[in-house]
């Protein structure tokens, strides 16, 4: 192609800005593309942090980052899943572990056998058959051997302190030769559906062939290229619009999972870190006042809140097209899911992975945008639907916000999943999904959506054989988990909390 990209510019702040800059510098810095970050004043505070999904591991690998060094810099810990409580009735709590359940039998999935067994009186919950869930509940870190490897797909996400994490990312990016300019955005020049340049308060004007917009909800670049109504709100399905962030003392020993509890007008998340605990509450401003929530955070968590407590506005939704002309919106700028499922960085990193794969071959026209947008739409919908399922399936009767959201009809893509699950306990999957069958099964079952019927093919297994098989699995899980290290000792071993300058692998 005659006119390759000469320069790409990232404009924004926070995770979107730095992870984009590092990804692009790492991927194209040595191929003759100049990468520049125009960093706008950061809104991040020491209290901020993120919970990530297991997909973050692959992303770190792509960037060649050393996991343990990165965790050390971010006071990070591993998290094997999230425990949901008080969403679907006062007693019901369940672990959404990043793992499968049991093993299939006679070409029929484990879940179908479990449904059948439950109908004939089995009282053992689904998660008892998940190695990851058992390890999470017992504060262990999953170390595989040959037999557990064959049985389980247990994996982990991370909890990270935002500033420590981004400092480490910045260090690597600058070390790799990223050009970094700090400043405030004064204006954006655009013509013919493309961004031409940005001008800073300092008067400096900067141009590039391709722009990455990481400016957050204001979408200060990409919004010039598209009609105003491009942002689609999800508040019908995900009604919380405010976030409260606070810190509490470190938990010892450190739990191997996050706790996500629903309350009258929102939910509260407890995210262990190596040197403190991150608390995050979400609520709907329509139904309650910030002051009331701040009081309830400490009451609900049972923890002493330390330092400042912040309240931010965060309405859920997404832009319809993430890439317009020569400008790609990433992360929070493109989509703003509810943080309930540790998805904070997930859409950012999947957007960046696709941007690397679909990096334009020409600076003059970029039909790659169509492929990128289709993929990101599917990913985004996958996340939205998964989150909407938590809210839709709530059984907090009498709480106005929860009553409201339960009555909403779900998006059609979610309705299809709920219908099939309710009929049969199967998950209707698309090609491009952010969460897999086991994740969906875990939460739909956990929230109490009970399939009307199980797969009749499961009946072919004689009951005695099934009971023996189930008992064998439970025994196996118990003894394997017993033999695993505690998360606390694993962390002390792999990531002693000391300063380190580089996080290269």
């Amino acid at each position, binding site marked *: 192609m005659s006119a390759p990209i000469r320069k790409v510019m990232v404009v924004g702040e926070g995770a979107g800005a730095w992870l984009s800059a590092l990804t692009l510098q790492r991927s194209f810095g040595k191929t003759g593309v100049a990468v520049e970050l125009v960093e706008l004043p950061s809104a991040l505070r020491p209290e901020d942090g993120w919970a990530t999904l297991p997909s973050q591991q692959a992303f770190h690998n792509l960037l060649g980052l050393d996991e343990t060094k990165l965790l050390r810099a971010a006071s990070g810990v591993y998290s094997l899943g999230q425990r949901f409580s008080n969403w679907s009735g006062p007693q019901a709590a369940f672990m959404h572990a990043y793992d499968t359940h049991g093993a299939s039998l006679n*070409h029929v999935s484990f879940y179908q056998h479990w449904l059948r067994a439950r109908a004939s009186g089995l009282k053992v919950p689904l998660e008892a058959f998940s190695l990851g869930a058992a390890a999470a509940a017992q504060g262990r870190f999953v170390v595989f051997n040959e037999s557990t490897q064959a049985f389980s797909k247990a994996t982990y996400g991370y909890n990270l302190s935002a500033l420590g994490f981004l400092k480490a990312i910045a260090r690597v990016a600058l070390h790799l030769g990223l050009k970094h300019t700090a400043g405030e955005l004064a204006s954006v020049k655009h013509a013919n559906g493309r961004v031409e340049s940005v001008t800073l308060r300092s008067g400096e004007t900067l141009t590039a062939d391709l722009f990455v917009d990481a400016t957050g909800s204001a979408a200060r670049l990409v919004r010039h290229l598209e009609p105003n109504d491009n942002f689609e709100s999800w508040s019908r399905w995900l009604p919380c619009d405010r976030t409260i962030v606070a810190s509490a003392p470190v938990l010892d020993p450190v739990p191997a999972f996050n706790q996500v509890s629903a309350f009258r007008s929102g939910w509260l998340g407890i995210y262990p870190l190596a040197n403190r605990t991150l608390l995050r509450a979400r609520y709907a401003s329509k139904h309650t006042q910030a002051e009331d929530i701040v009081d309830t955070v400490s009451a609900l968590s049972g923890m002493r809140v330390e330092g400042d407590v912040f309240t931010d506005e965060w309405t859920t939704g997404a832009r319809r097209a993430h890439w317009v002309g020569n400008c790609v919106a990433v992360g929070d700028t493109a989509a703003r899911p509810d943080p309930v499922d540790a998805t904070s960085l997930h859409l950012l990193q999947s957007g960046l992975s696709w941007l690397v794969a679909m990096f334009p071959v*020409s600076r003059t026209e970029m039909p790659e945008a169509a492929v990128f947008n289709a993929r990101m739409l599917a990913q985004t919908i996958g996340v939205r639907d998964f989150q909407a399922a938590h809210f839709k399936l709530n059984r907090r009767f009498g709480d106005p916000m929860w009553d409201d959201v339960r009555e909403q009809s779900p998006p059609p893509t979610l309705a299809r999943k709920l219908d099939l699950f309710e009929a049969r306990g199967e998950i209707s999957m698309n090609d491009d999904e952010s969460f897999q069958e086991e994740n969906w099964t875990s939460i739909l079952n956990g929230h109490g959506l009970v399939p009307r019927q199980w797969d009749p093919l499961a*009946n*072919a297994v004689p009951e005695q054989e099934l009971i023996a098989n189930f008992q064998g699995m439970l025994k196996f899980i118990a003894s394997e988990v017993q033999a695993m290290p505690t998360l606390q000792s694993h962390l002390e071993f792999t990531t002693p909390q000391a300063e380190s300058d580089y996080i290269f692998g």
Partner: protein
Amino acid sequence: MTDPLDIVIVGGGTAGWMTAAALAATVAGRQARVRLIESDQIGTVGVGEATLPQMKDFNDFVGIQEADMMKATQATFKLGIEFRDWGFTGSSYIHPFGEFGQPMGGVDFIHQWVRARQAGEAQDIETYSYAIQACRQGRFDFPVDDKQEVNSTYAYAYHLDAGLYARYLRGFAEPKGVERIEGRIVDVERDDETGFVTAVKLESGESVGGDYFIDCSGFNSLLFDKTLGVPFEDWSDWLPCDRAVAVPSERVDPMTPYTRSTALEAGWQWRIPLQHRTGNGYVFCSNYISDAEASSRLLENLDSPALADPRVLRFKAGRRACSWQGNCIAVGLSSGFLEPLESTSIYLIQVAIMALTQLFPGRRPDPALVAEFNRLVDYEYDRVRDFLILHYHLNSRDDSALWRRCREMPVPDSLREKMEMFRRRGFVERYRFGLFAPPSWISVYMGQGLLPEGFEPFARNASLATVTDRMRTLAGNIESRVQAMPRHADFVADYCPADLPEAPA
């Protein structure tokens, strides 16, 4: 346990007996009574069929021994399809069941290949496909499991006599409890209220009732067309061929481990090697050639003497608006037809059967199961359709009206975008479910003259010298390994020799 379900399979062609075998392996007996009705007066379609590698999964699922099945069906191995004269007269390319090269420098092989080719450093793409080299040399062996080895990079399918395959499956299904009923169905009874089929009536006056009716009646489409009147979506604007004339001929030596498809003025001709004979046929569009002309053209083109008179079959490309309605499920030709250009018919039978076993209903069909079944089946049909259209559309033949028309016809947007992204940058979408994988698209695009003009910019991270070095090593490795493989005919004679056919009287 509840009473067994009563399942009636209407028709005993490949679709009928594959369904019967799958049910025999799973539910027949305690959970379901399975009966199959077929009529000796009505022939089945069976012309010498080529299949896809997924067929092995089906046989494994059912519990069929490969060598035994191959002996019984006069089967040979298939590593791909040779397309002659498709792009232009005189051209030849192979669509392999295997990879092109291996990922290099963090990108798929195709990108490095394009890059090396632009630098004048790459050989023909076929050089880097193990499966294609084996085809070109007429050799076969099983792929190895070790993913590091180049002879693990392919899969294989079968050429077989579908009539014998149906008979073989009958021998498997009957001892497992499937009852066969001989007779011609002359009438269908339905429930006035629900519209459900309650029974089919045979010429003998016997009435066969059931809970579910699986329509495997071939082009007759006894239930879906004649009884339920499910509309047919006609795709003949894109796929204009509407007839085939088929004729068996004597075995041809050397026995190729691939199917051959040769483009002709008004369609194309297949050649499928079996152990005892060769299957041949001319798929054509009746607007451009008469049955008689097509027959004589086919006979002229044979590589060996004909063993019977040519037989004409009529069809129309398209599919039924749904494949499950009420208590009827269509499997096989009764649900739709896509010409055998990519050997997808038996595969589509398999898709429907696997979806049915996964969504196996209780006494009453749950609408959510029905919707999911239809979604899965439609998805596969639609994708196969686009891939077939590509073969017709992408040609530069100027010798006949059919080819000119196909080149100029508007194609579905989804296909147009795919072609554009390949031309621009070698991009091929990778599906999680269903057909076709990237090497299939790559082989047809390139074989029919659509070459990428660019490649993923990320590819430049590896030095060109390293890449071309690895490509040379790979080509050498493939060449020497292929040399050491047995000849296809020898392998078949050793592994699964079939009985010699009786000499014609």
